């Protein structure tokens, strides 16, 4: 069992317990959101001792060199003395330029950050909730060349931050944001490779960026976009995606709904079976899958079994704790 020392106090970390869970259990507050090593909001620094390598997954070289690690995926193998990462300089204000409903449960926000943010289309930013301590991640649907950051936010029943963004935040208000990170983005390492993009619900947000980025970077291979929802009212950007498909011969768009009639050109059925039927052989494909973590994981597995190489599957499960 390892001891975790923080601000002069030592705490016993149980077997298989992460540094985050250990500290929270002892009522030491550490910012966190996804609790699965994705959002980087729980970053800490090892002042003494070495955290296991996996706890630094996805961190920039410079942060690794300074012994930073993610508390939520750090199961210490030795005693550690840790300090909170001072993220205050990473947070900035962003003004809400526009707010509009994309359907009955998804709101679109367009933000103008105080300073320009360097990002790749498809990455995500973190936003602080009304209480100033809750942090949630939201994917960017915009392109770096556009002069606003665009987010698609789904209302989660009783959800703290999503309801704040839906009901309280207004045009002209400022939000605290940090970003951007994530590795679900387009790279032009093989421009002829066929792309399959599967978004469930607001999983379309990052894909809407990735699709347009691929087109802007002259991707020559085919691009197949599937957007899934429970029923037609849960879809959005139908016209935008149809227009893109009309403008680009390589692009096809298939809305999928589980219940009721699908819009024209769409399919009725669960998105996983639809994809399985349409793509029995994914050898050579690059696949992007975003949205609800459970669906993402099972589609990911299916795509792998259908022949896509693990290295060619990019995913952004919208994990929540």
């Amino acid at each position, binding site marked *: 069992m390892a001891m975790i020392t923080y601000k002069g106090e030592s705490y016993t970390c149980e077997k298989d317990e992460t540094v985050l869970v250990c500290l929270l259990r002892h009522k030491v507050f550490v910012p966190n959101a996804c609790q699965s090593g994705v959002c980087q909001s729980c970053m800490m620094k090892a002042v003494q001792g070495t955290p296991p390598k996996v706890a630094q997954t996805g961190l920039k070289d410079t942060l690794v060199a300074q012994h930073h690690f993610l508390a939520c995926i750090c199961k210490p193998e030795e005693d550690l003395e840790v300090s909170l990462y001072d993220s205050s300089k990473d947070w900035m204000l962003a003004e809400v330029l526009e707010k509009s409903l994309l359907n009955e449960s998804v709101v679109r926000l367009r933000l103008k950050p105080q300073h320009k943010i360097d990002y790749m289309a498809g990455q995500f930013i973190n936003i602080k909730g009304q209480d100033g301590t809750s942090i949630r991640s939201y994917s960017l649907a915009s392109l770096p060349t556009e002069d606003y950051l665009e987010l698609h936010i789904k209302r989660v029943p009783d959800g703290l931050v999503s309801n704040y963004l839906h009901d309280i935040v207004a045009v002209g208000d400022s939000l605290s944001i940090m970003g951007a990170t994530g590795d679900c983005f387009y790279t032009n390492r093989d421009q002829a490779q066929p792309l399959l993009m599967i978004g469930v619900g607001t999983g379309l947000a990052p894909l809407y960026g990735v699709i347009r980025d691929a087109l802007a970077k002259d991707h020559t291979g085919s691009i197949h976009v599937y957007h899934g929802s429970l029923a037609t009212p849960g879809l959005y950007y139908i016209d935008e995606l149809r227009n893109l498909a009309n403008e680009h011969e390589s692009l096809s768009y298939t809305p999928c709904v589980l219940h009721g009639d699908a819009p024209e050109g769409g399919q009725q059925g669960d998105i996983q079976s639809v994809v399985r039927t349409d793509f029995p052989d994914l050898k050579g494909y690059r696949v992007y899958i975003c949205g609800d973590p459970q669906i993402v*994981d099972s589609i*990911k*597995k299916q795509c*792998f*079994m259908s022949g896509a*190489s*693990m*290295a060619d*599957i990019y995913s952004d499960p919208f994990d929540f704790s």
Partner: protein
Amino acid sequence: MSLYEELGGEASVNAAVDIFYRRVLSDAYVASFFEGVDMEKQAGKQKAFLTMVFGGPNNYTGLDMREGHKHLVDKGLNDSHYEHILAHLRSTLAELGVGNDKIQEVISIADSVRTDILNK
């Protein structure tokens, strides 16, 4: 040259991991042991597994293997599952065109940790 180098080092591990993992997940007899483990993390572990049995650099000890598979032994992991994994390893290497004698070397490394994996 070490066995690992002869097989082609890290590149050969990368080539083998997709094929091997797909075979394992397609085999209902052993697939259940891999359920609920995140795919990407699992792929990393499959790479660790392959590097190890290819005789490549790794820091695992027999004790690590014992600890790492204990929860699986509790779920019923036994010699027959072990044989399945060895069979998938064999056919993966054959698919990649690895010669019989080399395959045999890999299999004997994989077999050398049996008592640890099965917690005997």
